[in-house]
């Protein structure tokens, strides 16, 4: 983010939300930063801590985030930030009527992260979309295929270095096995 927000994340913020404090207590090594820009509570965690933090968020009664609301990534290439990718997880708890954003930063040459598809069923397609659009590999995902683009598509369109006007080659017609000719003469 900008200068202002980066400093907020590194300083000790007295206005850290309850969840931020809770996560810092439970995962002292996992939490690397936080902010609450415009009231959206955000916690940055280490990549290795993702699975255990998510499990904690889902199962602990102080969190009970029943809904995995959204999963996406941000390519920060043009913001000149390193590491390049930022994974964004949005959660919603109906019990406590609150939201949380979780972030994990990934380097360009090592954009791999553990899949959390076994915690929420919604994650399966979200991770496929994120893989499709950003080329981030979710380790342990059962079916990591493209979802919006076709299999032969080259590159990952939401990366900032994918030109918006790039053209992909036309595909050859695929051979399919035809069982019926439906009156056509071949």
């Amino acid at each position, binding site marked *: 983010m*900008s200068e202002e927000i980066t400093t907020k994340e590194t300083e000790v913020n007295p206005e850290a939300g309850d969840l931020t404090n809770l996560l810092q207590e439970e995962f002292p090594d996992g939490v690397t930063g936080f902010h609450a820009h415009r009231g*959206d509570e955000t916690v940055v965690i280490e990549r290795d801590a993702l699975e255990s933090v998510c499990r904690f968020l889902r199962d602990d009664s102080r969190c009970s985030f029943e809904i995995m609301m959204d999963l996406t990534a941000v390519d920060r290439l043009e*913001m000149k930030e390193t590491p390049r990718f930022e994974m*964004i997880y949005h959660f919603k708890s*109906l019990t406590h009527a609150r939201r949380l954003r979780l972030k994990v930063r990934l380097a360009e040459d090592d954009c791999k992260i553990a899949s959390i598809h076994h915690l929420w*069923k*919604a994650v399966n397609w979200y991770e496929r979309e994120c893989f499709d659009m950003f080329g981030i590999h979710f380790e342990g995902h059962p079916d990591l295929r*493209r979802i919006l683009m*076709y299999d032969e598509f080259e590159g990952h369109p939401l990366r900032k270095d*994918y030109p918006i006007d790039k053209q992909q080659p036309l595909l050859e017609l695929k051979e399919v096995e035809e069982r019926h000719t439906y009156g056509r003469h071949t």
Partner: protein
Amino acid sequence: MTGMSALQSRIEGNSSGEDFSASIMSIEIGPAHPAMHGIVRFTTHLDGELIVGMEPEIGYLHRGFEKESENSKWIQVIPYTDRLNYVSPLLNNIGYSMAVEKLYGIEAPRRAEFTRVIMGEISRITDHLTCLGAVAMEIGAFTFFLWCIKAREYLWELVEEMSGARLTTNWTRFGGNAHDLPDGFLSDLADRLSKLKEVMSECDKLLTRNKIFIDRVKDIGSFSKEDALSFGFTGPLLRACGIPYDVRRSDSYSVYDELDFEIPVGSVGDCFDRFLVRMEEIRQSILIIEQAADKMPEGPFMTDERMIHYPDKKDVYGNIEGLIDHFKLVMEGHQPPAGEVYMPIEGGNGEMGFYLVSDGGGDPVRVRMRPPCFNLVSAMPAMTVGHYVADIVPIFGSVNMIGGELDR
């Protein structure tokens, strides 16, 4: 439930080593098929007429909304949002504009918010009418469909009166709306609402207690609360499962906390519950519109913050500040302060969230829209396996997949 036991015996049969593969038939439904709303493909695996497996394939309508948006100015994204959920375009406009307002840390004037509530609820009604009508038509109730389209037409005329277009509305701006209420709009609105209520009571008589209809939708596509939450359901489908989650109430954005309305919930989440929830939501939306029209405050419909709203023409031509603001807004675009926000609103199908990232420049770094029906379509296998082929039609109809929103 005979379907489930037949499925069970089939699965057990397979595990015992017997080969039934010859009797499992795969049928492609879609991409272009009358029962597919928009373009989507289901590869169904059938044992006779019983569905034993299904794989949805989406992406046929992918137009790169997010990529286009990230290569546009902030304000240029608004027309693109019309094309997301194209049966309720005003809700998309409102959601995106509110997200950018959150990024700026401003709020639209009260008159603008009340107008947004009215137009948003009108859009929600058109969305629900389209869904209900399509479901009913596909299972044979053609009259109901025509009645719904008739009612929708009344509302689209109001949308046209307000924004100048029926679908490509492009109506909101950051910090307000493009237009104030046109002359005589509120009396037109009251007139249309009374017509709508009449149509709704006729629709109610046509289907709600109709045995043929109930036989087709009752206990079809039932979904447990736990599964619905795990799949990330929101909107009418989650409420049909019995969970009263509505973003209008839980996040009480805009002026919804000043308006009195109820959140209808179902019990088992089958297609009939979904039908009833949507019917009741239309009635509640009518109540919301009436209250908002009564409470409509006087005042501006657009914020007067500099560098957010385009200055009036008399200022552009009359003084140097107006000219500079206009020039900079046109050439460099809006420049929301650096930061990131997630702004959820209750769309027609559920929680429509915009996640925006700004680096303080004129181009968005990230525009992400959480499509509510993405989760619903991903749960199609879970909803249909164990049912018969003919049940795909009401189940998929009540999911109300909108291609523009699903594939973006």
